[in-house]
C-alpha cells in the first residue's frame, strides 16, 4: 500500500511539474511581455516608457531567460512563495488572493451541487415513475432546453428579470457569504449546468431497478408503493449518482467562471479570466497549480472511496 501510494505521488508530482512547465512556456513564448501589456492595455498607451519598463521587468525577474525564470518560480513555489501579482492587485502576494478566492468558488460549487442533486434526483425519480408518459417527456425536454441556453444568456436575463422587472432582489454584488440573498441567483444558475446529467442518470438507474425481480417480489408481498420507492429503489439508484457528484462539484469549482464573471463574484473562476486578461504570470501559474491539485486530490479520493462503496471493485 505504501509503495503504491509513493508511486502514485511520484507520478503526479512529475505530471504537475510537466503541466506547470507547459503553462509557463505558453505564457512566455505565446502571451508576450506582461510589462509591455500593462502599458498598452486600457488607456495608458502614452505612458509606454523604456526606462519604466526596464525597471519593472527587473523588479519581477522578467528580464531573465525562460529556463531561469521557470526554475526561479519553481524553487520559490517549493519554499511556499507563490509570488506577487504583477498587475491584477499590484504587488499583493498571490497566495493571499488564492486563499480568499478559492473558498468562495468551493462554497458556490458545493451549494450548487447539492441543489442540482436534490432537484435532479427528484425529477429523475418522477420521470422514471411516469416512464414514457407526458410528465416524463416534459421533465426531460424542459431540463434539456433550459441547459441548452448558454449560461451567459440566462445569467444576465434572470438577473434583469428579477431586479428590474419583478423587483425581488437587488443586483447581487461581490461576496457576502453563501447564505446571503446575493448568493442565491448565482448558485441557482450554476446548478442548472449538471442538472440534465443527474436527471438522466437517476431516471435510467430507476428504470433498471424497476424491472428487478426483488421489486416485483416486494410488490407481490404487498409492500406499499411509497415504501418500495424509498427503501428498495432509491438506495441502489443513489450510489452511482453520489459517486458522480464529487466529479460534478470539481467541474463546478473550476467552471463557475462565467457565473462569477456575470455576477461580479470574486471567486477562483474569475481569477482565471482576470489573470489571463492582465497577463499576470504568477496568477495564471497559481490558477494552474491549484486547479490541477484539486483534480488530482479528488481523483485520488475517488479511487480510495470507490472500493468502499462498491464491493465488486474491492474483490478485484
Amino acid at each position: 500500500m505504501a509503495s503504491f501510494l509513493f508511486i502514485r505521488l511520484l507520478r503526479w508530482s512529475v505530471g504537475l511539474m510537466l503541466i506547470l512547465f507547459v503553462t509557463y512556456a505558453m505564457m512566455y513564448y505565446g502571451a508576450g511581455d506582461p510589462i509591455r501589456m500593462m502599458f498598452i492595455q486600457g488607456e495608458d498607451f502614452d505612458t509606454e516608457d523604456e526606462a519604466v519598463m526596464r525597471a519593472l521587468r527587473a523588479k519581477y525577474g522578467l528580464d531573465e531567460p525562460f529556463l531561469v525564470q521557470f526554475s526561479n518560480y519553481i524553487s520559490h513555489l517549493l519554499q511556499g512563495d507563490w509570488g506577487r501579482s504583477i498587475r491584477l492587485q499590484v504587488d499583493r502576494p498571490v497566495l493571499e488572493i488564492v486563499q480568499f478566492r478559492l473558498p468562495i468558488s468551493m462554497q458556490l460549487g458545493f451549494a450548487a451541487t447539492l441543489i442540482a442533486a436534490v432537484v435532479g434526483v427528484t425529477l429523475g425519480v418522477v420521470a422514471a415513475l411516469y416512464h414514457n408518459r407526458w410528465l416524463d417527456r416534459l421533465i426531460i425536454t424542459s431540463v434539456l432546453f433550459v441547459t441548452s441556453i448558454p449560461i451567459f444568456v440566462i445569467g444576465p436575463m434572470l438577473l434583469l428579470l428579477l431586479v428590474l422587472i419583478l423587483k425581488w432582489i437587488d443586483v447581487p454584488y461581490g461576496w457576502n457569504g453563501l447564505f446571503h440573498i446575493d448568493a442565491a441567483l448565482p448558485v441557482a444558475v450554476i446548478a442548472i449546468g449538471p442538472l440534465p446529467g443527474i436527471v438522466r442518470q437517476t431516471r435510467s438507474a430507476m428504470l433498471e431497478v424497476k424491472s428487478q425481480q426483488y421489486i416485483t417480489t416486494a410488490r407481490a408481498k404487498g409492500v406499499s408503493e411509497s415504501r418500495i420507492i424509498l427503501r428498495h429503489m432509491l438506495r441502489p439508484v443513489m450510489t452511482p449518482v453520489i459517486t458522480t457528484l464529487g466529479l460534478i462539484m470539481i467541474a463546478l469549482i473550476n467552471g463557475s467562471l462565467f457565473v462569477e464573471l456575470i455576477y461580479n463574484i470574486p471567486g477562483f473562476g474569475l481569477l482565471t479570466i482576470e489573470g489571463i486578461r492582465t497577463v499576470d504570470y504568477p496568477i495564471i501559474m497559481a490558477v494552474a497549480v491549484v486547479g490541477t491539485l484539486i483534480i488530482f486530490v479528488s481523483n485520488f479520493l475517488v479511487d480510495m472511496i470507490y472500493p468502499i462503496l462498491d464491493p465488486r471493485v474491492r474483490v478485484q
Partner: protein
Amino acid sequence: MSAAKPEAQVARIADDGSIYAGAQRNLWQDAARRFRKNWLAVAGLVVIALFLILALIGPHIAPYDFLEQNIVKAFQGSSAEHLLGVDDLGRDILSRMLHGARTAALVAFFTTIISLVIGVLVGGWAGIRGGRTDEFLMWISDLIQAMPGLLLVILINTTLRRPIINWFDALYEQTRNSFYLNTLWLDYVLVFSALALIGWPGLARLIRGQVLSIGEEDYVLAARALGASERHIMGRHVIPNAMGPLVVAVTAGMGGAILLEASLSFLGIGIQPPNASWGSMLQEGLRYWQIFPHLMLIPAVTIGIVQVAFVFLGDGLNDALDPRRNS
C-alpha cells in the same frame, strides 16, 4: 486469418428472451427500426440534417453578403428585404446566421473528428497493449484532464495564435505564396484544436473501457486464440461493438463544441469579428438586448435548438444501438 466471421459472434440473448442470431446487417436494421419509433430522436435528426444542409449551401443561398454593411438601416427589425432584420452595423442577420451555421458545423465536426481520431487511437492502443503503454497513455490523458478545461482552452487560444501566425509569416517570406498571408482561418483551427485537446481524453477512456470489456468476451478470446492480429480484432470486433456509446459521446460532443465556441466568443477570444459565428453574434447582441432583443434572441434560440437536437439524436441512437435497452 479471417476464419472467424464476426456475424456469427454477434449472437446475443435479448431481454425478451428471443435470440438475435445472424447478420450484423440485421442489427443495423433493427437499430433503424427502433430509431424510427423514437419521434424525438427523429425530430433531432431532421433538425441536424437541416442544420448541416444549411451549413453546406447556406452561404450560397444567403440573400446578402454577410459582411456588407448598410449603416443607415442599423438595428432594423424584420422586413421583407431582411427577413430576420439587420444588426448594429446594418448587416443582414439571416445571411450572417447562415454563415454562422457553417462556422458552427465546422467547429462541431472538426473538433469531434480530431478528438475522435486521437481518442480511438490512444484508447484502443492503451486497451490492447495494456501494461506500461496503457499506464503511460492513461497518465497523459489524466494529466490533460487534470488541468482545468477552460483554462487550457483559453491558454491555447491566447498563447498559441502568435507562434503559429509567425510561422506562417516566415513561410510567406520564403515562398511568397499568398496562401500563407491570410491567417484568418487560424481562429478556426485554434478553436478546433483547443476544444479537441480537452475532448479526446474522455473518448480515449471510453474506448479503452470498451476494449477491455470486449476483450474479455469469449468470441474475442477465440479470435485471438485463432491468431487474429490486433488490428483485425480492433477493426472487426472492438470498434463495431463500441459504436453505441461512441455515437452518443460524439453527438453530445458536437453540441457541446458549439456551446463552448459560443462561450469563448463571450470571453472575447476565439473567432473574431467580422467573421460570423453564432457565439460572437450573441455576444454582440447582448449589448443591445433591452431595445433590440432580436439581435440576441436569434442566435440564442438557434444555438438552443441545435443543442437540444444533438442531445435527442444522441439519446435516440444510444437506445437504438443498444439492444439491451429495447423495452
